[in-house]
């Protein structure tokens, strides 16, 4: 906005032009000050989280929320990972991190695969009533899961899966169907029908076309779906707290139990380190694949 005035020869003692120029500079300065404020508000908490996790407890109690640690120590991280007491066991977060991984990875892979096949069937092999089937599946995105919690608990008990990681995988797969189906169906609508018609005339079947033609055309939507599901399932708390027991609890539940327990001395540095550990996998995904991340979040914002 301010650039063109640079190129003009500046008439001597012209108050009008200089004031316009300084006005533009002032505007830009205010703009960047506001942006710096915004950046501080959003980035500040992460900085405080990280710097506190490297401090000792005496230093934390002496104040200085924004200061860098005087003598950085990784002790809190070691404690959070391997020694902190969560409930009655004192083995740190590592077991729960493992639980989250063992739960999240299969749940993500299976639900993305199911969603891809559903989306492909709905978008490329339509049949009478396909629109109704789509609507019935996708409506699941809007339902607050509180309304199914009790019957799911009963079902998991009946199946002998209550309190197990397998039970959580099953629940995440089932309730992942609406969002993954929606994502893939909407993407596959843009795959040209002619390609599929030609392949069908050549005698190719449903799955051959899916694996050989449609999937190779859609790496981006697969990445979006993987990120969306990974973030959603890793970060889930409602299902985790409802259907896990102390030995199968995922990270979110363990972290909440660690920080919000009323017993013992609160070791804030350990809490902060634990929080960073819990947030790390999805944050890393965001940093590496931010572009796909946004697409996933806008698609996934509807879901519970």
């Amino acid at each position, binding site marked *: 906005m301010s650039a063109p005035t640079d190129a003009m020869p500046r008439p001597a003692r012209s108050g009008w032009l200089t004031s316009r120029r300084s006005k533009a500079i002032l505007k830009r300065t205010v703009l960047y000050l*506001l942006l710096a404020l915004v950046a501080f508000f959003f980035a500040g908490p992460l900085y*405080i989280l990280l710097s506190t996790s490297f401090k000792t407890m005496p230093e934390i109690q002496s104040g200085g929320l924004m200061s860098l640690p005087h003598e950085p120590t990784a002790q809190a991280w070691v404690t959070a990972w391997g020694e902190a007491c969560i409930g009655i066991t004192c083995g740190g977060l590592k077991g729960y991190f493992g639980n989250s991984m063992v739960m999240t990875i299969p749940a993500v892979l299976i639900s993305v695969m199911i969603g891809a096949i559903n989306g492909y069937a709905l978008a490329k092999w339509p049949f009478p009533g396909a629109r109704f089937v789509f609507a019935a599946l996708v409506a699941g995105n809007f339902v607050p899961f509180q309304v199914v919690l009790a019957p799911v608990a009963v079902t998991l008990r009946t199946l002998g899966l209550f309190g197990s990681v397998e039970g959580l995988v099953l629940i995440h797969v089932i309730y992942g169907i609406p969002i993954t189906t929606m994502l893939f169906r909407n993407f596959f609508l843009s795959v040209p029908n002619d390609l599929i018609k030609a392949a069908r005339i050549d005698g190719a079947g449903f799955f051959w076309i899916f694996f050989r033609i449609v999937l190779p055309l859609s790496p981006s939507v697969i990445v979006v779906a993987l990120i969306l599901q990974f973030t959603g399932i890793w970060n889930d708390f409602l299902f985790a707290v409802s259907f896990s027991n102390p030995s199968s609890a995922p990270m979110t539940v363990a972290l909440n139990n660690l920080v919000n327990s009323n017993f013992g001395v609160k070791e804030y540095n350990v809490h902060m380190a634990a929080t960073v550990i*819990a947030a790390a996998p999805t944050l890393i995904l*965001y940093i590496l694949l931010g572009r796909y991340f946004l697409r996933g979040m806008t698609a996934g914002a509807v879901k519970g």
Partner: protein
Amino acid sequence: MRRFLQRHVSQIALSPSLALIAIFLYGFIAYTAAVSTTNSKAFPRFDNFVGLEQYWRLFHTPRWHVAFTNMFLFGGLFLLVTISLGLVIAILIDQRIRAESFFRSIVMYPMAMSFVVTGIIWQWLLNPTLGIEVMVHQLGFTSFRLDWLTNPDTVIWALVVAAFWQGCGLVMALFLAGLRGIDEDIWKAAAVDGIPAWRVYVFIVIPMLAPVFLTVVVLLSLSIVRAFDLVVALTNGGPGVSSDLPSVFMFDMAFRRTNLGLSAASAVVMLCTVLAILIPYLYAETRERA
């Protein structure tokens, strides 16, 4: 047989999902609705039909009143703050700034984190003996008070600021996409006429973003009804029950107070709230397209 399989392969591929959703979604909603008409305590039982008594009891439970009112209070404040600031931040970022992607990423990274993490971060920052309050005291403003977490009258602001911190990125991104979709010629025409930028925003650009506003309001409203983890991690409904929300009430009644009938009634009310938001929206959307 083979021919049948080939002709109906699409339906066959979909049928497991459809069956699962029919049972686990629609079946279970019906199940919960049925439980809400019984006097079930620790386990669902269907031999003690009480009609709509649980709903009557629900709306005569003081704690539910707090939770239900909080949903609207928290929701209203959260919508107001997030939409207005989200739009302002989107406009700031849309000024052809340097390092745009840097600023965008900073506003959006909290979306990647769980509400439990966000709740814990803000619990720490709002801690009156160690957090922001102490930091401001050390800067010399010793009368500064930030007691949101311990004051039942203002605790809702703790939820609002944490939810804003987490949710602003999405709103900003949606508005930014909307701003980028507006025809450049409008800006050129306004510049020719010498109309100041703020007037173009207020009278032309923002009205053109109406569909984005609608989407944002619906998305945020759905998340407000479902808000659960944030409250559990940040305030656990406290002090007392002053920051309770319907989801927390429902969970407590189902898993801790063994009052499944009442819990089911509260879950059904939550579902109805979602439908009350969604049905007019979907109706408007389909009419627009038709």
